[in-house]
């Protein structure tokens, strides 16, 4: 068997020559050639089958006994999700509005033009569901922002109450109203905003109860204790998420990594070791290499964090442009009254609107009943006009609301970590900023940015952003290079350019993977062999089809 390859090569060569030279000019000669081919083919199919069985048995004997850590990772993830919910509810930076998730719905209804009609129904149902969570059952009487809102919502609530939840009638009514009052959805939004404000106490108390429940369930005494617990869970998760050999093998098997790169003489591997393993380190010494790997694990986390920072750098720059001029100086600042002023304006205008609506709904414009149908028409038009003005006022209100939150924390030492927390706490404004900065109008795309931002903001193991000032320029690549030169890892600043980060991460991962395999019960060669056998088996299965 030791010479099986040699035997096969020679035998194949001889038989190729034989087959190629056999004549086929006559029927008898062709028949004879066919018989010869069939005989050789039969023999070689037997060789192939025996070889496949052998290779498979051998590959199976190399299978790893080490257990994958995916179960541990998923358990830690579950705990983190649960504690993130507690953190979300206890977050001292925002209010019941954000904790109830109304800001998410307000953003959606505010951008209804991006969605289709069915999703508008979902948004309205989303609002109603949240009210019901706090035991507030809204009826048609609660929707009197304008007579059109009342008409639409009466039909909507009727459809919602029915088991079939068919919204066909709602669509019909919408169609009718839309041509008289195209801003109907904006006015539904305003009605919900008013109802949310009106029920503030009930929502606050609901949130308070919820906070008590989740704190008890998760054995957390307060917000800070929750943060501490999360911090240690994230550290544990980072450790558990370190790639195991079975995981590396699965990556190689799925073709997610190039198994050739693991080989000792591979150029990519040689280059990765030259870049990342300090000179003078004995690469055959497991203890020395373990120290290098510990440092590389940290570098990997730093690079991943820096990569996320770069992704959201336009957002941070945007914030800087908007708010740097408002950073309080040393002199006495005049008190900010913007939010209160706009709240007062809204209240006054909503009272005016209320008066008009009362006349419309009671059918009495003053002391006398409507004289003509025209009086009613006029009042309806006036109410729509007032609602339009209110919609504009609410736009200013939103700006002032966020400005108020910003001013509460704004100072010249504000860090990127503070900013991450600010946007994480106010989903509505985070999405608005994403929309503006990245010029996206598709809701699913905005949500993707938003989710990715939250993952970055929520990670308590972030290091770089904690001390990074928003209003000062900082050379992060230089900081990273200097830090790792203390560990004798000489990185070139150009490797930390945004377009080179993935390549650097790949190099780090390659060294970590090779070293992980070297310290295990298997070897790079066995992994290579198993992957090749997998490919052969797949090819064999494909041929049998």
């Amino acid at each position, binding site marked *: *068997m*030791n010479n*099986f*390859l040699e*035997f*096969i*090569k020679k035998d*194949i060569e001889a*038989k*190729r020559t034989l*087959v*190629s030279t056999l004549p*086929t000019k006559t*029927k008898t000669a*062709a028949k004879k*050639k*066919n018989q010869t*081919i069939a005989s*050789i*083919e039969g*023999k*070689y*199919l*037997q*060789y*192939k*089958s*025996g*070889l*496949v069985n*052998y*290779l498979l*048995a*051998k590959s199976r*004997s190399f299978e790893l006994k080490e257990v994958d850590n995916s179960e541990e990772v998923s358990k830690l993830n579950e705990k983190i999700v649960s504690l993130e919910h507690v953190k979300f509810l206890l977050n001292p930076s925002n209010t019941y509005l954000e904790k109830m998730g109304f800001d998410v719905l307000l953003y959606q209804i505010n951008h209804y033009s991006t969605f289709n009609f069915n999703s508008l129904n979902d948004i309205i149902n989303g609002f109603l569901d949240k009210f019901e969570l706090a035991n507030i059952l809204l009826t048609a009487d609660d929707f009197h922002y304008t007579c059109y809102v009342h008409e639409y919502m009466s039909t909507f609530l009727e459809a919602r109450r029915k088991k079939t939840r068919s919204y066909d009638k709602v669509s019909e009514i919408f169609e009718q109203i839309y041509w008289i009052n195209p801003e109907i959805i904006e006015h539904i939004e305003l009605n919900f905003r008013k109802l949310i404000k009106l029920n503030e106490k009930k929502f606050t108390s609901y949130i308070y109860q919820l906070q008590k429940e989740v704190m008890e369930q998760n054995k957390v005494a307060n917000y800070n204790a929750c943060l501490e617990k999360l911090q240690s869970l994230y550290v544990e998760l980072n450790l558990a998420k370190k790639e195991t050999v079975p995981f590396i093998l699965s990556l190689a098997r799925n073709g997610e990594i190039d198994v050739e790169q693991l080989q000792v003489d591979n150029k990519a591997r040689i280059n990765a070791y030259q870049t990342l393993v300090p000179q003078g380190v004995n690469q055959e010494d497991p203890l020395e290499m373990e120290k290098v790997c510990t440092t590389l694990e940290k570098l990997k986390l730093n690079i991943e964090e820096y990569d996320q920072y770069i992704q959201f750098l336009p957002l941070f720059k945007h914030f800087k442009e908007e708010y740097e001029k408002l950073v309080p100086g040393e002199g006495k600042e005049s008190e900010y009254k913007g939010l209160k002023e706009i709240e007062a304006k809204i209240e006054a205008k909503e009272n005016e609107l209320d008066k008009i609506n009362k006349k419309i709904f009671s059918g009495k414009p003053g002391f006398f009943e409507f004289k003509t149908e025209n009086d009613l028409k006029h009042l309806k038009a006036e109410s729509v006009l007032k609602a339009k003005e209110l919609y504009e006022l609410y736009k200013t209100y939103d700006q002032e609301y966020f400005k108020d939150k910003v001013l509460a924390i704004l100072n010249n030492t504000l860090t990127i970590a503070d900013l991450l927390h600010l946007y994480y706490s106010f989903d509505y404004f985070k999405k608005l900023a994403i929309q503006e900065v990245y010029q996206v109008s598709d809701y699913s795309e905005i949500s993707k940015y938003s989710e990715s931002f939250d993952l970055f903001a929520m990670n308590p193991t972030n290091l770089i952003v904690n001390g990074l000032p928003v209003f000062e320029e900082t050379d992060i690549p230089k900081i990273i290079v200097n830090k790792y030169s203390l560990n004798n890892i000489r990185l070139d600043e150009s490797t930390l350019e945004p377009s080179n980060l993935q390549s650097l991460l790949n190099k780090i991962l390659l060294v970590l993977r090779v070293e992980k395999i070297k310290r295990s019960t298997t*070897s790079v*060669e*066995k992994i290579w*062999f198993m992957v*090749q*056998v997998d490919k*052969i088996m797949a*090819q064999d299965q494909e041929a049998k089809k």
Partner: protein
Amino acid sequence: MRKEEEKIDFDLSLLQLNELIEAYRDINDFLNFLEEEKQEIEDEEMV
């Protein structure tokens, strides 16, 4: 193959295992060659 197989030492070195993979590929190529030859004969008979 039976006789050849019997000679296989299950503890072959990895280098030898790699040779087996190469042998598999050679056999596969050769089987494809035989298929093509058969096809040629069939095509000629049709003519």
